[in-house]
């Protein structure tokens, strides 16, 4: 292959369409969760260790800071899940046209926003 073929993948010169934002957020939320998994495994260990440790985690969750961290992880998870389901639906050949892709992307943003808002209500 010609190594000097013209390419432009310089993201700073490209205006992202809505599908692009949905894609980059999918990646970003995925990377966030790779870090978030550490917190989740730590939580699993702490809550299963003993009744005392369980109680201290529960107490910890009354603080604003802990709630914001867990809301952040769950929001990344909710978004990633919705955007991932869109991928699976598109794998079945649904919403693969340009217009279908745009509509699906907008739908992902709406559903994810509702879920994240719902998570906030659940946590507070």
């Amino acid at each position, binding site marked *: *292959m010609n190594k000097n073929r013209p*390419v432009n*993948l310089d993201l700073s010169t490209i205006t992202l369409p809505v599908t692009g934002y949905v894609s980059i957020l999918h*990646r970003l939320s*995925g*990377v966030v969760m*790779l870090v978030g*998994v*550490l917190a989740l*495994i730590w939580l*699993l*260990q702490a*809550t*299963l260790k*003993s*009744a005392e440790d*369980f*109680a201290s985690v529960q107490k910890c969750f009354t603080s604003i800071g802990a709630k914001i961290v867990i809301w952040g992880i769950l929001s990344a*998870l909710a978004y990633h*899940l919705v955007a*991932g*389901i869109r*991928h*699976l639906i598109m*794998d079945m050949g649904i919403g693969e046209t340009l217009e279908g892709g745009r509509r699906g992307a907008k739908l992902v943003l709406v559903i994810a926003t509702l879920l994240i808002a719902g998570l906030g209500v*659940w946590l507070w």
Partner: protein
Amino acid sequence: MVRAATSFGRSGVSDWIVQRFSAVILAGYTVFIVGFLMLNPGLDYATWHALFSCTAVRIFTLLALLSVAAHGWIGLWAVITDYLTERVLGCKALPLRMFILATYAIITFAYVAWGIQILWGK
């Protein structure tokens, strides 16, 4: 020629399939745990401990952890091979990607081992 020596399954199609199967497992596990937490608002230690004493739940959790390891590897590989490229970083790109994937491999292996200890330890 696509050099895919660091991709998860050494083949794009294999990665594609693993990414989807692990995604479905993780989606199921998420619904299971979040659903359990939502159905048990005043959750106490005994109920929570009983849930994870169940062999099926332990196996499901280990399966989810292994899915995270594979899914995360494929996702991270896709992200770093797109952005940390020779075009952007020159000859530093490959060692940097290798370093990130090696670090991820060690951390994710630790996650899995730690998970097994939490689930079957004591």
